[in-house]
């Protein structure tokens, strides 16, 4: 499908332009600035819905393709396009951003216009990451994204925000510079930074292993996978609510997206040889981090660890395909793990975003994230309690919510490969239920814990709207995931073929 205007460029640059405009307006124009931010983010969302409507789900090729010369000296092009993997992630991005703007509407007191501007610029850059089809362009968006996030955590974060944001920046920066070396190496081999060309570039096993390792470091930090996850709990705990939401809902997906777009198709042989490594790390994340989540005293930290465990499913689903082929000897059904990984990414974006917003609602009232400071919130905030329980159940993977679909598909795929993989992965259903339900029990249910809880006000209209919209999305995706699966299917089918083809 091709529109006669560059829809992807508009999606990337409209929020960035609005963000820059907002910076120029400054804090004096807060009244106007807020509405400007909301209008820009809603307009971006509307355009992305148009993108979804015009998207042709019957093909695996890149759609809404744009290409302009950019840097002649490096043969780098300004190339944008989407397929079944990137389109849903772009819609997720544009869906979450207006909610973050609304959630921060009156809550942010320090330099609010800069706050909104940072989120808008971040949104454009994130869409750029998903839409870029030139590795150099991808890298520029990928790195540039760190700057607004660095500022968001550092300016509007909590007590130890400086430590957390510097750790976040350096961790991800270190990961990505090695990816840069790998990209340059491939460019010198093939003379092109186009992702399609890099996917077709023949590479020896040794080269593939080195490149795979460089990618692994970059994406594993971003996902984050055990054992390079330690920045995430710090960043989440210290970030303002909006920052946590964007971080959990979208930025973690960059790592998963990187595996699907770079590692698997560019170094298929190395991925096949080293899939045990990823599977082992993923299962470690699922099981070990699940136990870690169980003992957290801080609500945000608990959700952060639960994010790591859930993202373990994404990487597990992405790499289990090799094991399925090995076990069954046929390619049919290998895509199931990838399906699960994609659904899990979208679902986790919605559920974790919603949970962080719930915690934000409590934090705005009580200024505490400690579980022990709460108890019996449902008595004073019944509507909030209902939402919190719903999202917690979705996080635990209750059937009927979006959380179930992705986990179920991945566990099913793991069964095809090896019973014990599935057994270990399924432990998360128990652990996930344990830590989220225990969280809910301690925070929401029971008698009113203290005087502060007794004085809590229930959700206001703004908060109700944000959580309501997310609840609808979580239920819709859980009850009827077919539209999402249909959009992804041809692309994932092609990806499986690329994975099974040797590049040696």
């Amino acid at each position, binding site marked *: 499908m091709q529109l006669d205007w560059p829809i992807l460029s508009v999606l990337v640059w409209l929020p960035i332009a609005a963000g820059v405009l907002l910076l120029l307006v400054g804090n004096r124009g807060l009244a106007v600035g807020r509405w400007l931010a909301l209008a820009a983010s809603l307009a971006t969302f509307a355009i992305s819905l148009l993108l979804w409507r015009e998207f042709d789900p019957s093909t695996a090729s890149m759609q809404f393709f744009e290409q302009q010369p950019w840097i002649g000296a490096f043969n780098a092009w300004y190339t944008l396009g989407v397929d079944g993997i990137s389109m849903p992630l772009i819609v997720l991005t544009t869906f979450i951003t207006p909610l973050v703007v609304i959630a921060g509407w009156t809550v942010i007191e320090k330099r609010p216009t800069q706050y909104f501007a940072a989120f808008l610029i971040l949104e454009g850059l994130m869409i750029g990451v998903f839409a870029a089809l030139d590795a150099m362009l991808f890298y520029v968006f990928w790195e540039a994204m760190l700057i607004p996030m660095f500022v968001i955590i550092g300016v509007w974060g909590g007590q130890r925000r400086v430590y957390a944001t*510097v750790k976040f920046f350096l961790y991800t920066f270190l990961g990505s510079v090695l990816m840069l070396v790998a990209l340059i190496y491939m460019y010198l081999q093939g003379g092109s930074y186009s992702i399609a060309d890099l996917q077709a570039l023949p590479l020896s096993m040794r080269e593939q292993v080195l490149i795979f390792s460089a990618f692994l470091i970059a994406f594993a930090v971003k996902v984050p996978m055990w054992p390079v996850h330690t920045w995430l709990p710090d960043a989440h705990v210290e970030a303002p609510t909006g920052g946590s939401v964007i971080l959990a809902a979208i930025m973690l997906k960059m790592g998963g997206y990187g595996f699907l777009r770079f590692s698997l198709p560019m170094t298929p042989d190395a991925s096949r040889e080293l899939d045990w490594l990823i599977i082992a790390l993923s299962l470690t994340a699922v099981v070990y981090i699940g136990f870690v989540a169980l003992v957290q005293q801080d609500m945000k930290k608990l959700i952060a660890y639960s994010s790591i465990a859930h993202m373990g499913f994404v990487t597990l689903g992405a790499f289990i395909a090799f094991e399925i082929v090995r076990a069954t000897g046929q390619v049919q059904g290998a895509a199931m793990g990838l399906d699960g990984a994609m659904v899990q990414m979208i679902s986790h974006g919605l559920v974790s975003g919603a949970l962080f917003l719930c915690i934000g609602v409590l934090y705005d009232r009580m200024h505490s994230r400690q579980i022990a400071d709460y108890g019996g919130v449902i008595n004073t905030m019944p509507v909030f309690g209902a939402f919190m329980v719903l999202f917690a159940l979705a996080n635990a993977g209750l059937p009927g919510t979006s959380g179930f679909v992705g986990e179920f598909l991945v566990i099913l795929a793991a069964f095809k490969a090896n019973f014990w993989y599935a057994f270990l992965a399924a432990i998360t259903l128990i652990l996930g239920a344990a830590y989220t339900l225990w969280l809910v029990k301690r925070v929401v249910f029971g008698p009113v814990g203290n005087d502060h809880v007794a004085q809590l006000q229930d959700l206001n209209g703004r908060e109700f709207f944000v959580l309501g919209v997310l609840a609808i999305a979580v239920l819709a995706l859980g009850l009827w995931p077919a539209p999402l699966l249909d959009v992804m299917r041809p692309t994932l089918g092609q990806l499986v073929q690329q994975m099974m083809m040797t590049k040696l």
Partner: protein
Amino acid sequence: MNPASITRLDLVLATPEMFLLAATCVILLGDLFLRDRDRWITFVLSLLTLAGVAWITAATGFTERTVGWHGTYVADPLSTLLKIVACGAVAVAFLYGHGYLQVRRILQGEYYVLGLFALLGVMVLASANSLVTLYLGVELLALSLYALVAFNRDSGIAAEAAIKYFVLGSIASGALLYGMSIIYGVTGSLELGVISNAALQMPAGQIGLLFGLAFIVVGVAFKFGAVPFHTWVPDVYHGAPTPVTLFLAAAPKLGSFALAFRLLAEGLGAVHATGWQDMITMVAVLSIIVGNVVAIAQTNIKRMLAYSTISHVGFILLGILAGTSQGYAAALYYTITYVIMSVGGFGMIILLSRKGFEADSLEDFKGLNARSPWFAAVMLMLMFSMAGVPPFVGFWAKLAVIQAVLDIGSLWLAIVAVALSVVGAYYYLRVVKLMYFDEPTDKTALQGGGGAMRFVLSLNGLAVLLLGLFPGLLLALCARVIP
């Protein structure tokens, strides 16, 4: 050389330098008759001179390599580009420094005259085609800089820096001269082209050539401020008045690049693989490591930027050691972008300073975002650019250099370079942290610099962004001027 043998071509070749020399002498004499409050005339005349030199350079711009003055002088696209960029850098340095010197009542005409003489040194270096011309350029530049560093005569720390710079610089010049004399003895010529041919004829590892080469590398590394010949850099950057530091960080770096390119690539390119590549590799790696690691411990921003300069020099040398035209182009690109970033960085220090307050401590940047969101944003762009984060221009410079290094198959060099740029990111982030995350201790409005300076500094910041979004033009230009 008798006067009759000077051809018209020779004169055309050196017109920009002759014009600059004449104009500088006029300014030097004219300034004697000006009272202190009329000093702006010197300033304006200097800027006009710079514009004139840049215009003449562009107008006489040689598209082909043309040698004149009996083989001692060359004009080629590279020299044209270096000279024009140097004029721009000097003009910006004058512009940023004017207000600073004025409010401290140390604005003397000599600041401009010495600056212009230093520029002349850079231009001679850019066009040198013989060892003697190179040495002439080096000394002209160095002597002007020694005097500039000591410009504030009542400042003890500046005098100390100047003496240190002078003593160490003289030793380095001596080493350079000694190396040149040995090269002359071995090859029998002062002219770079002849030296290059002679070196090609010699067997690999010819001991006299390598001996001379070692001294030449010492001289080049010193002029760049590369480890282990870097000890003067932090002290001089710290001790000199900020406008002089700014000057030091800009145009002379172009001169150093010209010195390295003319001597090592054009003169001694034949002994690249067997001679200087390994030496420069060590110097470059040490510079990147020491510069980035030691910068973390600094509390004075001028010292921090001095160590950051050392690490940037390491990157420039990485491009040079590749020895390919792609590598030289990358090094040139890096040098030019470094000049743009560093004048911006020191410009910000001048902007924050006021009479009796230097703003050269990192703490002085606290809460800048609350005092001036726009200039905090400019500094943020400069810092992220120096750290090599896209979409700013510094990223492309690092990319070009790493690409050149990978192209010659040095994976380990590329990994060292990127790993240490992560270390380097830490201290640039600290500046951003101070500006954005901390509240200001000093809530007054910024006082340094007039409207013109603020305008140019804003453009400076935007240039870092725009050249980063559209790096193609400058990259192509750098690739084109390297033969």
